[in-house]
């Protein structure tokens, strides 16, 4: 992965806890009726895809040390609307328009954060209000219902899996390669690890931040495109709980919120883990409340575990 290996001293505790957790999960899952079916595996992957794509983008932003975005849902909604209202120009144009919209909106926030060091939380709350307010204003609340349905192909399945799953895998691979094999990716880790040092060393902090956010924007837009296709129309609330779901997946994947550590593959794992657990609970007949509760506990466990591993030996 990297030319210069990072010391891989895995302590007994660090290994036992996740293994025990995994064993419990496998046990639970294996004894759950219909869990071990091809259909269910497919359903899990399919339900991972939408949140997963956004979470992969969020991973880059978090690694680059600019924390989280609280404007994700609103951005996804806007891109979905642009996607649907440009259907008549063909699928490629519509997707391009959506992605460019997502990239422009999100990279702009990245620029303010990267070049002017604005606080990401405050900025993205503001952006969320602005995008949400403007969307309601311009759409007047009316849903976008396209006459032409170019998007149908995005709802189809290939080898039994929805197209979105392949896009998720593609985005993951792309993010992974970007992070580990490109100058920009390495700089994301460095900037996230110590932003002041990166600045003093003359690293292009602003540019790196913008690249990470632009990637994120493209991912949000892809999620928006799939959401729009799946629902065949877009309303102001289409984005739903995407914001927190994406952050949860990134955190469960073990990326540090303080930046400098994490990976796209781990986020994919985090997203799948959340989906699997929700699925097991659903199949076992637990209520929505219990599903959410367990998700919260899972995020907490991941955050604590990541933190303990990172600070092991430094405290």
């Amino acid at each position: 992965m990297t030319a210069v290996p990072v010391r891989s001293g895995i302590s007994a505790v660090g290994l036992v806890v996740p293994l025990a957790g995994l064993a419990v999960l496998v046990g639970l899952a294996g004894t759950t009726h219909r869990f071990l079916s091809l259909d269910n595996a497919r359903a899990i992957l399919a339900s991972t895809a939408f949140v997963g794509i956004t979470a992969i983008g969020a991973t880059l932003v978090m690694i680059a040390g600019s924390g989280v975005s609280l404007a994700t849902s609103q951005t996804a909604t806007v891109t979905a609307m642009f996607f649907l209202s440009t259907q008549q120009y063909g699928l490629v144009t519509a997707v391009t328009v959506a992605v460019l919209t997502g990239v422009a909106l999100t990279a702009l926030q990245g620029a303010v954060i990267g070049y002017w060091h604005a606080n990401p939380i405050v900025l993205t709350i503001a952006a969320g209000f602005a995008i949400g307010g403007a969307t309601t204003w311009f759409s007047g609340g009316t849903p976008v219902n396209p006459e032409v349905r170019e998007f149908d192909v995005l709802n189809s399945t290939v080898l039994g899996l929805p197209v979105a799953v392949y896009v998720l895998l593609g985005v993951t691979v792309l993010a992974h390669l970007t992070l580990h094999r490109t100058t920009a990716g390495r700089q994301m880790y460095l900037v996230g690890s110590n932003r002041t040092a990166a600045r003093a060393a003359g690293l292009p902090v602003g540019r790196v931040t913008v690249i990470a956010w632009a990637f994120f924007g493209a991912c949000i837009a892809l999620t928006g495109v799939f959401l729009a296709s799946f629902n065949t129309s877009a309303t102001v609330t289409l984005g739903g709980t995407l914001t927190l779901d994406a952050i949860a997946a990134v955190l469960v994947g073990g990326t540090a919120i303080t930046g400098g550590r994490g990976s796209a593959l781990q986020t994919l794992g985090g997203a799948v883990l959340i989906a699997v657990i929700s699925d097991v609970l659903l199949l076992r007949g637990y209520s929505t409340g219990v599903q959410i509760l367990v998700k919260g506990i899972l995020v907490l466990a991941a955050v604590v575990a990541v933190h303990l591993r990172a600070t092991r030996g430094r405290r």
Partner: protein
Amino acid sequence: GTTGNASSADGSSSMKGKTIALVGYGSSNPWGAYFNKVFTEQLTSTGVKINDMTTMDPGTQVQKFNQALAQKPDLIVLAILDTQAMVAPIKKAKAAGVPVLAVDGPTDPSVAADVMSVLSDNEVLGEYAAQNIIEGLKAQGRETGNIIVLTGTKSMLVTQDRMKGFNKVMATAPQYRVVDEQDANWDPQLSGTIAQQLLAKHGRDGVQAAYGMADYMALPIIQAAKQAGFPIGKDGLVVTSSNCFKAGIDAVKAGELYGTATEDPGTIAKQSADYTVRFLTGKKPPQSETVKEERVTAANVDQFAEQCSHA
């Protein structure tokens, strides 16, 4: 549907200078957006002043209602977000002598006598959904059948009423069974996710029909079913919903959605506007009116295409 154009009602001149506070659903909700638009359009020519006090947040709604009350309008038109939270404010309005017209969802029974109302018939909407399913399954010649239901936010009376009607009719066909009922919170994305998992849980021969409480909740079920390889329509999964949107009408036409029902915002907005005119011109309308809801299936879909195309 009743109504004509409210502005043509006689005595509209006597409405000049009157004020209505519209404490309705916010325009971030498509249903609310179209309702507000039609309602306002219907009344503009009468010269009545409408204060926009819409919101989608229950807390803000209480505050805006109280605000409206303080401005002593001639009528408050209210679309309730949180039934309980509205009880005390409605009592206050009663005490202050400000008339309230509740539209769409019902008020809490304890204050039902204190307001006028133009209500959607949610029980009937639920019944229609059940009828659609039974009809669809019978048409396929099925002796038995399993059904999954994705509801709107369970805490809302609207949801509860629809389920009441739905269950009542389903009880008449005990050979068809509801195997799973989940709260999808009026959220299309959540509907999709839950549908994917439920379909996988019960398997291809474990589910024959599905009820998504609104078109935008039923369509994700159809997508999820398609992706999971379920046949849809004629010989496949029977999917129905219960308030029509344009996308739903298209799906009915395409044969993917077995049926839906009205509760379209335009109709109720027109009837509410009409009611308002009658009230403000002293015509003493009945205390409560119910909007006539219609069942929509492939047979009569063209008739409703226009009515349902606005949200």
